[in-house]
């Protein structure tokens, strides 16, 4: 989707189990939900 929008050089950082210990943990585990971070650039 990022590339489809015209962005490039996609880099993905760490994933975090951000819902661990929260009330949303059960739903998050059901779908293996994570907090992700990524970067990309617009062509110069």
């Amino acid at each position, binding site marked *: *989707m*990022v590339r*489809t*929008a*015209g*962005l490039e050089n996609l*880099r993905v*950082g*760490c*994933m*975090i189990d*951000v*819902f661990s*210990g*929260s*009330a*949303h943990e059960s*739903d998050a585990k*059901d*779908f*293996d*939900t*994570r*907090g*992700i*971070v*990524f*970067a*990309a*650039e*617009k*062509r*110069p």
Partner: protein
Amino acid sequence: MTETFAPVDVERLRSEVKLKYRDVATNPERGFHFHVGRPLAEMLDYPMDVVDALPPRVVESFAGVNNPFSMGELRPGESVLDIGSGAGFDSLLAAQMVGPEGHVTGVDMTPEMRDKARANASLVGLGNVEFVDGLAENLPLPDASVDVVISNGAINLCPDKLAVYREIARVLKPGGRLQIADVVVQKPLPDDAVADIDLWTG
């Protein structure tokens, strides 16, 4: 993935998101289905010396899902857009990084979050940041106007994600970059879960 527009009632989804995040802004200690505040910032590996230098009310309504600054620090003088800026935690950190020659625009559709973000900016004494009303799918900024787009836990709440990324591409200057934190699900979602607004808003 070819379908980018989720099968939900868009207006109802936005209304529910606003209600949820109104509570996060005005009553952050209430307890939510997701983490908020200082414990969350620590979990996401924000530098706690920087976080603890902020007044507690600047941090208490933070509701991100990762750390967009982990993909690279912002440079002095850069112009930054924060999509779904909430109570302004990331925007204010960005404003500190870009300094007085830089500028940060936070866009958020929840009035109580924008009000709190403006109050937080005043509390910290930062004049290089503003908070405006808007939707991620229709950003209130000109073409090619920002160096960096950041966002933290907001795009997953948008029903048309491709429209969001097209808007990001539109507002970025050539050579500009995005640093986005968001939620991913690594198992297929059944149709009833995709259509369940309670699951969208947590």
